[in-house]
């Protein structure tokens, strides 16, 4: 089955966070808890719902990810934007994400590919 992580926005500052191994919430994608089976997914959703109720995180939900050489990457492009940052503002990059940001030089035909990995 597909791999998942849980994501949401932190209530107090709105920033994108991921459910971490220790049950807390982290901004670092690499520290997110990768969920491997349905049973675990159900458990983590319950945990996340509790965190929403406890006013820690807003409307958490699971997303599909891939894991290559240990590197976790969201599948949906929209989730990659949430995880890595707005493609037009590399200054606001949240994690290392080669190829995510629009090239900064004058190469006008450098469309940032959003094809699935």
């Amino acid at each position, binding site marked *: 089955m597909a791999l998942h992580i849980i994501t949401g*926005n932190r*209530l*107090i*500052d*709105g*920033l*994108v966070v991921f459910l971490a191994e220790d049950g807390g919430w982290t901004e670092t994608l690499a520290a997110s808890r990768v969920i491997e089976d349905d049973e675990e997914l159900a458990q983590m959703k319950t945990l996340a719902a509790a965190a*929403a*109720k*406890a*006013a820690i995180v*807003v*409307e958490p939900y699971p997303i599909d990810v891939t894991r290559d050489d240990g590197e976790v990457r969201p599948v*949906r*492009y*929209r989730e990659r*934007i*949430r995880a890595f*940052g*707005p*493609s*037009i*503002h590399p200054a*606001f990059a949240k994690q290392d994400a080669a190829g995510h940001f*629009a090239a900064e030089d*004058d190469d*006008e*035909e450098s*469309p*940032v590919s*959003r*094809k*699935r990995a």
Partner: protein
Amino acid sequence: MYRYDEFDQRLIDERVAQFREQVARRLSGELTEDEFKPLRLMNGVYLQLHAYMLRVSIPYGLLSSRQLRMLAHIARTYDRDYGHFTTRQNIQYNWPKLEDLPDILADLASVEMHAIQTSGNSFRNTTADQYAGVAADEVEDSRIYAEIIRQWSTLHPEFSFLPRKFKIAVTASPKDRTAVWFHDIGVIMHRDEQGEVGFEILAGGGQGRTPMIGKTVRKFVPKKHLLSYLEAIMRVYNMLGRRDNLFKARIKILVHETGIDEFRRLVEAEWAQIKNGYLDLPQAEIDRITDHFQPPAYETLADASPEFKKKLREDKDFATWITANTAAHKRSGYAIVNLSLKPIGVPPGDLTSAQMDAVADLADRYSFGELRATHEQNLTFADVRKTDLYALWQELKKHNLATANVGLIGDIICCPGLDYCALANARSIPVAQRIARRFQDLKRQHDIGPLRLKMSGCINACGHHHVGHIGILGVDRKGEEYYQITLGGSADEHASIGDILGPAFPSDKVVDAVEALIDTYLDIRNDGEAFLETYRRVGKEPFKERLYATA
């Protein structure tokens, strides 16, 4: 400009206190997100992809330098050092923290600003002509009535939970610069046969999923009846607007499904009950607000000094900037100056806090301390002496605000798109930037002539793509970003909705497609014929052929 009295100030102070309490209840968990959402939306607070977003109201786009400095302060202190000007004359911040929002609103309140009703299902910012007060063709100053409508529509107890958002625009010139035909209610100021100034009231215009041009409900409403007439429309909408389907909840759907004649009958029946009552607008209040919009201390000046003419001859870049970025002022010796927020490489409409401070200083020096935000995401200095234009231009260049592209293809109107917005299907800004780069040569832009290119990242059309001469809509096709092109839209008094040309283009083909459209236009245009004129003369076939011929 309008200055708050004790009543205006107390209202926004009370709102700040109320919101502070609501945020505290949210942070403690007492309010769930579902309960908090409509409350935060009434204060312009969205939760988007990366963070909260705060939309600050700039009533009819008018700002003082003092207010702009505060906007800079907020960007610097609470956000990431920049703000984004929108297609409704507001400003947005993309990174505020919820816990800071009460303080941000308190800072705004200290300069007579707020974020009330910039989102949610109530009245939004009432917009007006960015050339109000200085355009020779205006009947009266549209801002006066925009301010009257602003107050009447703020925290209206009956209309704070409408089926959907509600946008009103006021114009007072035969040349419409407000997109009045594409608003939920449009107010067109004009004279009747007796020379009395009143309002043509339109309803049911809008863009989004189902673009529609507004319809006239009443051709002439005298000033004193303005608020009662609007209230009658709102009551009909509040009671009969659809609440079963979010995408069918705007008043345009009600007008369309009811038919304008029946809709008018309902409105007039309601109005008959409430006119000549306590909603009549007293002349004393019109006078009080009019007093706030008196012309500034203009000097008596010759229209164009010899030095100015000399500079025009000698400095081609200056002349180019004058041609694109300035407009005629009704007063001799003055000019309207548009600051382009569309330099190459910058997301359209973005301004750094340093630029905001610079613009505030320049407004003080060159334009009586005021400026306007336009619905095309630029800024306007309304009252610049022609003798100052050269010096101002030098200053604007230093701050990257003098790109001579206003009204041209480089002056792209663009929503934040998938890079920021939770509603988007595709990114918009990178494509806009690539188009701008392809056409960055100014000579080429000026040769192409007036061209409104507008882009949206989803069908909500915040980039107003339906009314672009060239409109581009980002769509998601099986996980890929594709771009659909429309042609022939127009937001002025000859309102039209763009025609879809054909299948959408992938991201790496869309810039070429736009270039092909421009080339087609250049090939077939008559002398002096602008893009939109050519399109209206020849229709979409030549453009369609060129775009899709080489399949």
